[in-house]
């Protein structure tokens, strides 16, 4: 009964937002125990300016796949800089605050101007849409000086 209600709700939501093929009701499900985290740098870390910053993408109980690849329980990493994470089932923007790693990368190097910055990871499915529930890391703050 509950399942059918959820299905109905999903159908209604899907119909209501028919303009977007990736409406909330269509979000790819993620494993309940998927755990995404930034392995490096640490929260509160002070980093040297004018030097590339390596960022490690940590992911447990889920796998990595490049964009456009549909494989159960996989997605690809997105690094959010100085911005908030999108809601579940939303296509992740692609701009200087939302870096996409659609080639299956599991680390990167970035450069940041001096000051305080926030970093956060969010997984996207093969269409860059966030999962439901969203697989998102804790947001950390680093200081570049």
């Amino acid at each position: 009964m509950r399942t059918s209600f959820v299905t109905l709700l999903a159908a209604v939501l899907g119909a209501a937002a028919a303009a977007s093929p990736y409406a909330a009701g269509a979000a790819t499900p993620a494993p309940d125990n998927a755990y995404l985290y930034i392995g490096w740098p640490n929260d509160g870390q002070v980093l040297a300016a004018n030097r590339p910053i390596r960022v490690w993408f940590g992911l447990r109980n889920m796998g990595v796949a490049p964009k456009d690849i549909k494989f159960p329980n996989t997605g690809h990493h997105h690094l959010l800089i100085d911005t908030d994470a999108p809601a579940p089932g939303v296509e992740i923007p692609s701009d200087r605050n939302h870096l996409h790693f659609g080639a299956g990368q599991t680390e990167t190097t970035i450069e940041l101007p001096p000051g305080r910055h926030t970093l956060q990871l969010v997984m996207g499915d093969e269409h860059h849409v966030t999962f439901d529930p969203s697989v998102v890391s804790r947001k950390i703050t680093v200081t570049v000086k």
Partner: protein
Amino acid sequence: MMCRTIVLMVSAACLYAMPACARTPAPENAQVYFIWPGDGAVVHHAFWVRMGLRNMGVAPKGTDVAGTGHHHLLVDTELPANMDDAVPNDRNHLHFGAGETEARIELPPGRHTLQLLLGDKDHIPHDPPVYSKRITVTVK
């Protein structure tokens, strides 16, 4: 038609005459390494292995995308003698064909060696093969 025939002939030549050219190319600067544990680490019998990869991406088995592969963890064994074959699938060769970049493994007490080897969509090492340094851990 002619073109297709030539392609088929070349493919056949690759498959039968020159097996080496069938291997998936890897970027020259690709590097696979252990983020954790470090060489010489003392660990509990169950521990997380964090697999690091630079200048390449991770893709599940069966995925044909250039510059990608999936991790294999070699436990207490050496690199395969023949890199043209698929990485064996047994207790000494753990496959992470679902695109995993971390794994929780359990080992009996004692000294063990660990090494990472990337495989392509068919579990065959790339050309050149992408493998990590072989490290030693002690399980207490």
